[in-house]
């Protein structure tokens, strides 16, 4: 039993690492091979893309050539791929031409903000979707008028269909800019507009205060479909699964039938959905950071894309991929804990 479980974990780990490898190769294709095959000099990515000034063109091109030489961009492709992989997996992302700083320094400054938003909203959407899903399913199955189901499900479907960008702007304008219930940006929250320097618990509380609007927005738009998924699954399990009927026939008490048999089986597809949602949360966090002036890797990546800061883009793409795969790997564990068929490789 133990050996099989360990084999399962190692199998999933290898699987996730292969996925990461494919993603890295994909970014090599997008950021190096394609531009180069179109005749673009990759050295520009590393010195920054600027207009050639007729007077200094000579010097600029020399710098580009020097960069290509320094980063080995003219080496044979297999060697470059190996180097590309080595650099990413050892976190050597190079220098950002726009920030004039190592990419790792830039990222480590902004990444934590993004991770807080994504991770916390992943947890809040999960908790809310399960609680409202259970409330709705119970009401659907047990109550006559199903009012609890109607309330919980309409709330969820409504929240899911609210245009996130629109709601974000409304929240920012009304709750932050007009009512001042929330800070207008992270800097204002932490520094009081440059007048204070908060420390200790107060610092974290004010950080949380600034992070709450973006988290609330991501939560509102992110829990609805998972609530519907778990609600429908529970109802389906409860009504038609043979083991639920059998559990009732054996005289098990209602909460055992509901939670131990119907709910736990209904949870499995929901866990798969959490994995899919992580990727969408990463998209979501890009514009949420912009709306709420919450400086995270989303803003930085968007700016890097518009200013062609390729080393920064490669670095942030890589770290986002790693984050998603770590979450997926964690979910593999959850799935294996819930379902012995996965753990024991049926």
């Amino acid at each position, binding site marked *: 039993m133990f050996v099989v479980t360990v084999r399962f974990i190692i199998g999933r780990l290898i699987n996730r690492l292969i996925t990461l490898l494919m993603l890295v190769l994909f970014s090599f294709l997008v950021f190096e091979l394609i531009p180069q095959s179109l005749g673009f000099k990759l050295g520009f990515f590393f010195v920054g893309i600027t207009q050639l000034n007729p007077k200094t063109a000579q010097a600029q091109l020399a710098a580009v050539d020097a960069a290509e030489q320094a980063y080995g961009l003219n080496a044979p492709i297999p060697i470059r791929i190996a180097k590309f992989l080595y650099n990413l997996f050892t976190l050597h992302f190079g220098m950002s031409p726009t920030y004039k700083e190592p990419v790792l320094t830039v990222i480590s400054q902004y990444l934590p903000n993004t991770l807080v938003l994504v991770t916390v909203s992943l947890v809040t959407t999960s908790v809310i979707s399960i609680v409202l899903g259970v409330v709705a399913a119970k009401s659907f199955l047990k109550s006559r008028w199903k009012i609890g189901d109607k309330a919980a499900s309409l709330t969820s479907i409504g929240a899911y269909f609210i245009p996130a960008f629109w709601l974000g702007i409304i929240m920012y304008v009304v709750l932050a800019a007009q009512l001042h219930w929330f800070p207008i940006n992270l800097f204002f929250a932490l520094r009081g507009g440059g007048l204070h320097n908060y420390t200790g618990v107060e610092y974290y509380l004010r950080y949380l205060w600034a992070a709450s609007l973006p988290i609330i927005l991501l939560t509102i738009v992110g829990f609805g479909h998972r609530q519907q998924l778990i609600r429908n699954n529970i109802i389906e399990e409860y009504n038609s699964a043979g083991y639920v009927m059998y559990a009732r*026939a054996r005289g098990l008490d209602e909460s055992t039938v509901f939670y131990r048999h119907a709910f*736990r089986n209904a949870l499995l597809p929901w866990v798969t959905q959490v994995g899919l949602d992580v990727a969408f949360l990463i998209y979501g966090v890009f514009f949420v950071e912009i709306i709420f002036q919450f400086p995270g890797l989303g803003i930085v990546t968007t700016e890097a894309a518009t200013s062609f800061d390729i080393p920064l883009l490669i670095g942030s793409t890589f770290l986002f991929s790693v984050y998603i795969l770590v979450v997926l790997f964690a979910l593999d564990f959850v799935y294996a804990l819930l379902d012995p068929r996965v753990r024991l490789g049926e």
Partner: protein
Amino acid sequence: MLVSQTRAIGVEGLNVEFYTPRGALRAVNDVSFEVYEGESLGIVGESGSGKTTLASAIIRVLPSNARSWGRVTVYGKDLGSMSESQLNREVRWRVISYVPQASQNALDPLYRVGDQFVETVRAHTDMSEKQVLEKASELLKHVGVDPSKLNSYPWELSGGQKQRVMIALALLLSPKIVILDEPTTAMDTIIQAQILEMFRQLKQFERLTTIFISHDISVIANVADRVGVMYAGRLVEIGPVEDVFGRPLHPYTQGLLRSVPDIRRKDGSFGYIPGSPPDLVNPPSGCPFHPRCSYAVEICRKLMPPMELYAKDHYAACHVISSRKDLGLG
């Protein structure tokens, strides 16, 4: 056969209706019968004739889109008037247990077989886990399953093993009544014979009352004292097993028996009933069997025939039986 006069199960005018997108589907229609203590009643009929629904209606585990009415009594107690928790405490598994079809995946794939024995006992008594597993091992040995399977997950067992595990689970609290739904379909004939023998002994020594539901007529002939024939949700014939199978009265029962392959029939032919079972959302008027019945007359299209007594304990619901000389009824 010594059958006591204590009525173990009484079913009176039981109906079950499912709400489907196409309309109400009457899966069980005005079914009445009784089973006495120590007796074994067989229920036969085609798939979709309402046998399984009848079983789930008796122990009241119908899905939420179903509604049932009528009276079900167990040792005189009206189950309809009991609350869900009262049923759990006083009836389910302690008095009536149930063996569902293996194809219904009744064992939860997420829990070990042993855990499902333990949770069942825990719901009713305060036996320790060790005691439960000891008793479970003993029962598993009786049904010919290695007790080490208690550590297995249901999906690690074969269909026949699952059926035998569920039979062991049904006997765990020594109930008075067991309802078995296609209990032997996934078993090979030798194991099937052992299981049927076990139930014969339980009946003889423990006065266990059973309802055997099966489409396998040879199983029913083997094990049942009386047999009921279901068609389109209705009980169309019921009586002692040797009478119903020896001198079937209802045209449907006759067709059903003719359709059983018989090794002694040299030409290898076997009869079948033309047509197909009716749509239960829009059932035919009158007798539900009339569109397929070669004896049907005008009144069959208009009126549902009542259950009538034709021989000792032998009832059938058909308009034309009494007009048929070939049945040799006095």
